[in-house]
């Protein structure tokens, strides 16, 4: 097998995720330490699929209250009113405000759901040992990693609206119970992305290549 090995793992080498150094663990060892940057090393991220699923399922569970419960509660002379994320998007829709409205819609509703679906797709195809669309799946992972942070935007919108609109008794804004769940979705999906090991996407193809070289 080693004669036709194509990946670091097949060669019995650790590739450091932090500094990129390739190094050889002690004989028979699964774990090691990078001699250059001291990072803990394994051939693949430990229990990557299980951990990613755990974060992902937790995120999907939080996704429901995040969208159903209000994230902001406004008290004014006209009484009080509470808004969910989607209502916030609708409220922002105006002849001048619609581009921002679209950005918030994209960042708060489309990105979190796309992230959850994409990661689930990657997890399922990896579990099934798929050898198709490897490059596309790898790019998909990197894209999710890159744009995921932008869903935090609604947390900041609410944080600063709440911080600023404190004109009691005229008008005041308080954070709603949905905000916690929304923030949880963002953090949990980011942790899910971090737990996933993109090298798993290529492992089934690497095994085939090693046999056919």
């Amino acid at each position, binding site marked *: 097998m080693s004669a036709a090995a194509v990946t670091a793992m097949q060669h019995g080498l650790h590739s450091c995720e932090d500094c990129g150094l390739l190094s050889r663990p002690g004989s028979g060892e699964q774990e090691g330490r990078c*001699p250059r940057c001291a990072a803990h090393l394994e051939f693949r991220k430990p229990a990557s699929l299980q951990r990613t699923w755990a974060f992902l399922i937790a995120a999907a569970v939080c996704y429901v209250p995040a969208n159903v419960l209000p994230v902001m509660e406004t008290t004014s002379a006209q009484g009080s009113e509470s808004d969910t994320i989607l209502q916030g998007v609708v409220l922002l829709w105006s002849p001048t405000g619609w581009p*921002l409205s679209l950005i918030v819609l994209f960042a708060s509703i489309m990105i979190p759901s796309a992230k959850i679906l994409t990661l689930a797709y990657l997890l399922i195809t990896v579990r099934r040992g798929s050898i198709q669309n490897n490059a596309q799946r*790898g790019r998909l992972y990197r894209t999710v990693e890159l744009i995921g942070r932008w869903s935090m935007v609604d947390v900041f919108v609410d*944080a600063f609206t*709440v911080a600023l609109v404190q004109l009691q008794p005229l008008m005041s804004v308080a954070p709603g119970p949905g905000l916690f769940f929304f*923030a949880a979705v963002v953090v949990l999906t980011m942790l899910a992305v971090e737990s996933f090991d993109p090298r798993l*996407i290529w492992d089934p193809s*690497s095994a085939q290549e090693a046999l056919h070289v």
Partner: protein
Amino acid sequence: MYNEPLADASLLACPDCDLVQRLPDIEPGASAHCPRCNFELWRRRDHLRHRTLPLTLAAVVLYLVANTTPMLGIAAVGREASTTVLGGAEQLWRDGREIVAGLVLATAVLAPALQIGFMLAIVLGARSERPPSWVGTLLRHHPTARTWSMIEVMMLGVLVALIKIAELATVIPGPALFALGALVFLLAGIQAGFDPRVVWDRVEWAEAATRRAGAPAQMAGEMP
């Protein structure tokens, strides 16, 4: 136990598909991609000395301005209120959303401080021919600080909040808002011009530092 390095230092494995390959020597500004999955393995940049240090120093100043001056104020029917970056976390805390407040504090204040502070220490430490191993430690943790540092996301959030509130009251932008706006571009510029490989190639290895520190007491072998 530290792993054993390979004799051929130009070999590496693609972080995305694990393919072992030799990194080609490329011109500054050019990039090397994995032949199998097309992942960008390296984009060579040589700005470390000339550009990164002044940009990072400017980022330190802007960060201090952004966190010590008012960011936004509003005025409505004779009443006024204002907030700072910290104020965003503070009011959430007072309203009983401690966890969300902590997250805002971490992503808007703490992580950016680490991101900028680490970068400053790395650039200063990397000025010597053989940067000490703590530079490697900071370099290793810098991407985590960057992942959770969300100044640019906060900027967009503030902008949206500002437009929402502008319908109800007069909004008065403060110096922190402009400092943050500039900081977003500055951080992007620092990131675009910084090549960690330049530092990794010269830094003192953790293994060597441990051996040096523990040699008299024979501690090297006992490191976890």
